[in-house]
Every structure is written in structure tokens, then in C-alpha cells.
């Protein structure tokens, strides 16, 4: 039964894709793409209405009939309201999402209502397991986050997501598919014991002053996870201040290459985890860094976009036909 249902749902989705094509975000939900069916509760109520109608006709009771018709009309009005709850709703989503293996990914959406009506109980379904319910105020917008359960490293592509609502009375369920692929790049869990290649090289050359021979001390920054311990400003910590890090100018001048080949003898996932850790450390230490892996090379850079490119390269590694 469950399998049958799933197959039917898959078929419906395919049909809807053929019908609407791939969407571009942001999207305003049009009338043509909203589907509506009665819920189990609604069907039961429908049966009850038929019974009421028969009772009214049987007893030839005009008041009973009037009451039955009032409820019937109420259901019809509710159907329109359920449909309207999605109609004209603006949807936007973050298309590419970064996550780490073992931690839940968060898909982000924005729902926007340009109309003078509140949108109540809008559910965003990404998968059967990942959904959340939101309310969008009239002429307002609502940021919505749907948590995906933790996944292994790799790339996951959700071909579409679904907006559903059972507002107002739970008698009907209307929904719409948004055929916009959402890609979740799950980078490996940052793990590993190897220090950064540059630090390893420096460790051979003893002193700290040598390491930073051609660099000038540029001041203190606040602590961030992944900063090499030797950059910590321990004196500041000892004085009881906020954990701080010494930063140096000139670091940017020397790009650090994070090499796949530097990690011989480890298995693939462990290597990727180590690379991930290095990327985070380098980023936190404001190094310029590049990534070199079989088949991929990310030229040195710095910043959130660069970090994201590198992490996605790790996520993609070994994945067939990565997006």
C-alpha cells in the first residue's frame, strides 16, 4: 500500500514536471499549479453531509436541509480558502546549500505574501522526513528553515520541493510543486590529526620568529575555531581577556597548497576529512589557500565563497555526475 502510494506520488510529480517545466526562483505561485484534494477528515465530513441531506429529505424537514446546505456551502467556501492560501504566494529558496557530514543540513526559504491576507499553516516539504510549518503575515515575508537529517559526505540533489496547506479547517489539502533543484553539498566531517603543511614545514625549522621572518605582526583578532594553537595570544588569555589570535600581514602573500598527495597512506574519506579540517583552519587563520586533488584544482584564494568552492570540491569527490 505504502509502496503503491509512493509510486503514485512519483508519477504525479513527473507529470507535474512535464506540465510546468523547471522553475526559476523567486516564483509566484499561480492558479494553474495549485492542486487540491479533500483530506480523510474532509471525506468523512462529505459522507456525513450526504447522510444529513438524506435525513433532511426523508423527514421532509426544510430546516434540517437548510442546515445541511449551510455546512455543504461552508465546505465549498473552505475549499476556496484552502486554495487561496497558496495562491499568489512568493517563494524563494537558497539553491545550493553547504553542510557537513554528520550534522543536519538546513535548507533556507523565503515565503512572501503581497496580499492583504495572512497565509496560515504553510508547510514546506522537502522530503517526507523534512518539513516545517510557517505563517506569513499579510504584506510580509517569512524566512523558513527546513532541517534535513544528517547525511554522509556527498552531493544530494532534491529535484523539487512542495508547499502544502490544510488551512483553514483541515478538510482539504492543497499543494504545489516547485521544480527547482536544491543541491546539498555535504562536505566531509572536519577530522584528522595532521597539522597544516606550512606549519609542519615550520615545525622542522624550530623557532617561531623564523617562521614569521618576513611577516610583520599586525595586531590581535578575536579567536575563531580552527586557528593554529601557536597563533593564540596566550598572554591576553592569561590576563583574563577574550581569547585572541595574533595576526600577521604577509600571510596572504604566501598561498598554502592543501594537497591530496600530502596524505599518502590514508583511506579516501580520512584524507577528505583531513583536507576539510585544513580548509577550515586556513580560512580561520586568514591564509590564502588552494586545493589540489586528483581531477580538481582550486586556485588559491580566501573568503566565504572560496571556502565554499573548496568544500564543494570535497563533497563532489568521487561522486558520479556531480552537479
Amino acid at each position, binding site marked *: 500500500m505504502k509502496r503503491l502510494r509512493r509510486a503514485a506520488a512519483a508519477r504525479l510529480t513527473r507529470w507535474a514536471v512535464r506540465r510546468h517545466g523547471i522553475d526559476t526562483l523567486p516564483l509566484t505561485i499561480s492558479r494553474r499549479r495549485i492542486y487540491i484534494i479533500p483530506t480523510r477528515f474532509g471525506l468523512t465530513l462529505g459522507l456525513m453531509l450526504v447522510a*444529513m441531506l438524506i435525513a433532511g429529505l426523508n423527514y421532509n424537514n426544510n430546516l*434540517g436541509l437548510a442546515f445541511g446546505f*449551510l455546512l455543504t456551502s461552508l465546505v465549498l467556501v473552505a475549499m476556496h480558502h484552502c486554495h487561496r492560501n497558496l495562491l499568489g504566494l512568493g517563494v524563494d529558496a537558497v539553491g545550493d546549500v553547504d553542510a557537513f557530514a554528520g550534522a543536519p543540513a538546513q535548507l533556507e526559504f523565503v515565503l512572501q505574501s503581497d496580499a492583504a491576507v495572512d497565509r496560515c*499553516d504553510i508547510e514546506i516539504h522537502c522530503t517526507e522526513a523534512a518539513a516545517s510549518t510557517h505563517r506569513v503575515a499579510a504584506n510580509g515575508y517569512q524566512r523558513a528553515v527546513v532541517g534535513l537529517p544528517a547525511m554522509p559526505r556527498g552531493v544530494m540533489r532534491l529535484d523539487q520541493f512542495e508547499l502544502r496547506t490544510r488551512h483553514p479547517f*483541515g478538510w482539504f489539502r492543497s499543494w504545489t510543486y516547485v521544480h527547482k533543484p536544491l543541491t546539498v553539498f555535504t562536505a566531509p566531517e572536519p577530522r584528522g590529526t595532521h597539522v597544516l603543511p606550512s606549519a609542519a614545514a615550520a615545525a622542522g625549522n624550530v623557532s617561531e620568529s623564523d617562521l614569521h621572518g618576513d611577516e610583520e605582526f599586525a595586531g590581535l583578532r578575536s579567536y575563531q575555531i580552527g586557528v593554529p594553537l601557536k597563533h593564540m595570544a596566550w598572554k591576553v588569555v592569561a590576563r583574563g581577556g577574550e581569547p585572541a589570535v595574533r595576526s600577521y600581514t604577509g600571510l596572504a602573500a604566501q598561498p598554502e597548497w592543501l594537497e591530496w598527495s600530502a596524505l599518502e597512506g590514508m583511506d579516501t574519506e580520512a584524507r577528505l576529512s583531513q583536507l576539510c579540517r585544513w580548509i577550515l583552519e586556513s580560512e580561520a587563520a586568514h591564509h590564502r589557500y588552494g586545493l589540489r586533488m586528483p581531477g580538481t584544482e582550486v586556485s588559491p584564494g580566501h573568503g566565504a565563497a572560496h571556502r565554499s568552492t573548496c568544500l564543494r570540491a570535497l563533497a563532489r569527490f568521487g561522486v558520479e555526475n556531480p552537479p
Partner: protein
Amino acid sequence: MIGQRMAAERISFERLTWISGCLALALLPVVVRLPLWLIAMVVTATGLRLVLAARGHDAPPRLIRVIVPLLAIALLFVQYRTFNGLSAGTALLCLIAGLKVLESKTGRDLHVVVMIIYFLSLAALLQGESFWLLGYLVVVCWLTTSSLLGLTSSASWGVWRTNVRYAGRVLAQAVPLTVALWLFFPRFGGPLWQLADDSNAATSGLSDSMSPGDITELALSDDVAFRVRFSPGSQAPPERYWRGPVLHDFDGRAWRRTDAGRMPAPPLHFDGPALQYTVSMEPNQHNWIFVLEWPAGWSGSRASLTSDYMLVAPNAIAQPVDVVATSYVHAQAAEPLDTGMRRRDTRLPVGPNPRSLRLSQEMRAAHRDDLDYVHAVLDMFRQQPFFYTLTPPRLAADSVDAFLFDSRRGFCGHYASAFATLMRDAGIPARVVTGYHGGTYNRFADYWIIRQSDAHAWDEIWIDGHGWLRVDPTAMVAPQRVESGLNDAVSAGAPLTSRWQQRTPWLADTRLRLDALRQLWRQRILGFDQGSQEKLLGLMHIPAPDGQKLAIILGLCLTVGLSWLTWQVRRELKPRPRDPLTRAYARLCRRLAAVGLPRMPHEGPEDFAARIALRRPDIAATLTVLCRRYSDLRYAAAPAPATVSTFIRAVRSFRPRGSRGSS
């Protein structure tokens, strides 16, 4: 499935309270029909669940949730012996609702309660039919729907005011469709099938037997039996005897109706003016329709006339029904009395009432002619000290003897019974007719109200050459009673309300006005049927109305109604109507967008003009002026209307051409 997850959530105390409150309101109209133990059980179950919820507990243990319902339903079956029929069905629904509240764990259980509340409202309407009940139940439906909104919504419960308002709006939008459905949904003539009909078990009224004292109880009842409106051209006759059950069998104490089989009514020669009138019957547990004597024609082919000229419907009158009837004040039998009927109407039990038999033999010896004998008996009632009272003494087994010779105090039933006995003793066919006499005229709406207190009993005797003649022996004793109703005749024993009304005329007037309204409601709303639908189509100038045309009109109405609904619901989605200035600016932007120069959402008018000016020097000057003027008008303290209209005109005449391949 998030919806299911929501429904499976534990229910809060507030939601439970709301639903329980709605259930209580829905139970109120039917509560008088429920056995006491059932009410106690429903109240206990609901109360118990509320207390549990208030302390943060869940539903009671499974054992209780299984055993209590089983016991209760068994008890219910013992009481009613059936689950079929309105009373038993209603009781079962109430019980299930109470128990469902008790065992409710999730929102879905409460959804079931909501449906039961809807159905209970319907059951209440099937048993009562007042305007107020309908209004009350619509309010209950409103509140229940609001609770349902709170139940399904993920928002916090604190927004109940919003819920009530929203549910009210949905309900208001449902009204036009309801009216269309109600007006044009095809009605059937009769019931689809007969159910155990117990809905009116408590209604008072005449029955198909009469023992002394029966009608006395009715005399104290103010309930309306039926209402009559005489058609234009028909004057209400001074003597209004509304014929009901005709009784033939006498056992010495009580008169009973025998089923004469399907014998047709013997033909009559009618004489005098015909009276046409509409009888609006109130529901009762019998199937007879009260008509003036002598009935000649009636609407509704399903009703038929018995051999003793009683008009009967095929089924008990469970719903208010209107019958248009024609009667003649004078009629004569066209054929001699059938021997079987003569035998039936002269039969007396042997043994009881020996003294009356002796009396009749003496009088018969003196008066050989039938009519002479009748007059002699009536003279006896008139001249001897017979009293007319609402509180006659209890009579012994030989009721006629006891009345004629001992107490001599009685009500119409006593007189009719004694007179018929004396007639039969003398070999004159006689029967007792029960029905109503008189009635109150409602001058505010031109119709007659006949109440239970107008119940009466009289006799009909067969005189060869004349046919059946009506004789009212009670009239011999208290002649004024024949002129008007019982209220005037015996005001001391009359209902309290009637006595008040006699003293305060405005109170009586108000009562009549209210009754006129009630009659209007009854005829227009409760009595709405196939005939009314035909009339309605006639008013719409639709020739030859029939079921098919009705269905077409219903379809049309639904289409229009649903389109209206769609428009009504989507209208709220459109942005608010804007002022002319904003509209003009929007037009300017649209025109520019049409030539490939859309305004970016973040751009104000002057930024926009500046950007366009760089790209399109040809329109730069005009556009800069327009945009600056718009800004001024928009943000200046109070722009003069004249400048606004100048701006609108300027926008209208501004027609940018497409860029010449540059861009």
C-alpha cells in the same frame, strides 16, 4: 506527513475546553429528550477529561476507555430497544460524543467530536422547527467551526478572537450558496423510507378513542392544533365544526374508532355555498386532517376520505403540512344507509347502562317519530339540571347511567356519549364525532387559530330522508359555548394565560401578532415544498416548471455562486486600491518597462530617472521632470488636486519609443 503529525499532537486543555463547551451548547436543545442517566454520564465523562487535562494528564487508562462505552451502549439499548429512529439515534450520538471527549488523546479524536456536534445540531432541527432554534444552532455551528480552526491551526490558541472572526467570515460567504441550494434543490413528495417515527411522541391532541374526561385535559392545553385561512370569496361560517376522528364502537365506557376498511365515502348531494380554505396542520402522531363538514374536495391526492367522511393522510403528520380543502355547509345523503353501517352504528354492549336503556324505551314509546324523539332527548338536556363543567366527578363503570342519573355534571364528551347511547337504544344510527369547534380569528393576518383547548365532541345521527345530521347536545346546556370557544364559557377553569389575555387586550394582540409571524415562518419556510418551487419558477417566468428545469436552474445558481465565491475570495489577494497619483506613476513605469526600461524594485523615482537619463538622452529631460514632480506630489505636505491632475495628464501624453538598437 506533517498534517498527521499535527493531528497526532497531544491536545491542550484550552482546545478541550472549547470543544466541550461547543458540545454542551449543541446538547442543550435535545437535552429534554435524553434519559437522565445519559446526561449525567456525558457530563461526568467530559468533566473528568477536563479535570485530567487541567492537571496535565492524558486520557484515562485503556480499561476504562473500553468498558465504560460498552456498558453505556448496552444500557442505551436496554432503554430504547433499538438504535433506529430519531430519539435513540440522538441519544446514541450524545453518548458517543461524551465518551469520545473522555478518550480523546489527539486532535483527530476532537475532529470526530466536531462532526458529532454538527450532526447533533441536525438532529435537534429534525425535532424542533422554530426560527430561534435555527438561529441558535447556526451560532453553535459558528463557534464549533471556530474551535475547529483552532484545532487544525498550528498557531497558538490565544488567537481565538481571530478564529471566531475568520470562521464568521467563512460562514457569511457560505450564506448565498446555502440559499440557492435550499431554494432550488429538488424536494420529494414523501419520505424516502419510513423510520421508526417517535419524534412527536409527546404531542398532545385528540386520539382515536374517547372516554369521559379525555377532552377535559385538552381543554387546558394552549397548543395550536392547526390554523385555517379561508380563501378569498369564502366567508368563515358561523358554526365551525372541524371534523376529526369519528367513533363507532362503544363498550359502555369508552368510544373507539373501528377501521372500516377501504370503503369509499357514500356520495352526497351538496347544497349551498362552497367554502374553500387552507388547513395548516401542526405535526401530531395521527394521520387525520381536520376539515369543515362536509368535505367535497382537497388538494394532495394522497389524502383520502373514509366512509364516515374523515379526511386522512397516508402517514402520520410528522411535518407541518398544508391542505387546501373545499366543504359545503349543507349536504344530503344520495343513497340510503348501508346495512353494515347501520348495524355498526346502532350496536350497543349488552349489560352496561341499563337505566338509560329503560329511559330511552319510555321516551321512544311517547315519540314514535325519529326527529320527535331526538328533540325530546335534547329538551331533557336543556330543561333538566344538567351542568357543564371542566371538572366533572369521576364516574362509575356504567358511565352513561352515572352521568344521566347521578352526577349530571359533565363536559362535551359526556353529553355526546350519553346522547349517542340514547339514540342507539332507540334504534337510531348514531356516532360520536371528535374534533375542534370554533377557533380564534387572527385579525392581523386573516386566519383562524384552532388550539387544543377548542377540542370538542358531538354526535351525528342518521335520519332516513335527511341523511347524517349533526347534533351537538352540549349546546343545549351551555348555548354560549357554541357561539365561541371554551375560554369564555368556563373562564374559571381555563388556562392562566388565557385569563390574563382576556383582561389585557394588548397582550392578546401581541400574542396574535407573534402567531401571525410564526404562521408565516411555517408556511414560507417549513412548508416549502414542490408546490412552492413550482410557484417560484412561475415567478421567474419559466414556463411549465418541472424537475429538470429546477435542476438546470440549480446548476446555474451553483455556477454563479461558485464564481462569485472565487471572485470574493480572490479579491482579498489583490493589492489595495491605490490613489490616482500612484496609479499614474505605475502607468509611467509600465510604459517604460514596455520599451525595455524597467524600474528596479529598489529605485526611487529620482534614481530611476537618473539611470534612464544616462541610457536614453532623448527622453531624459521629460522623464526627469515627471519623476521629480511625482516625488514632490508624493511627499509634499498637501498637493493641490489641480497639480495632481496635471501630472496625470502629463503621464498620459508621455509615450516613450523603443530604443533604436542601442541599449
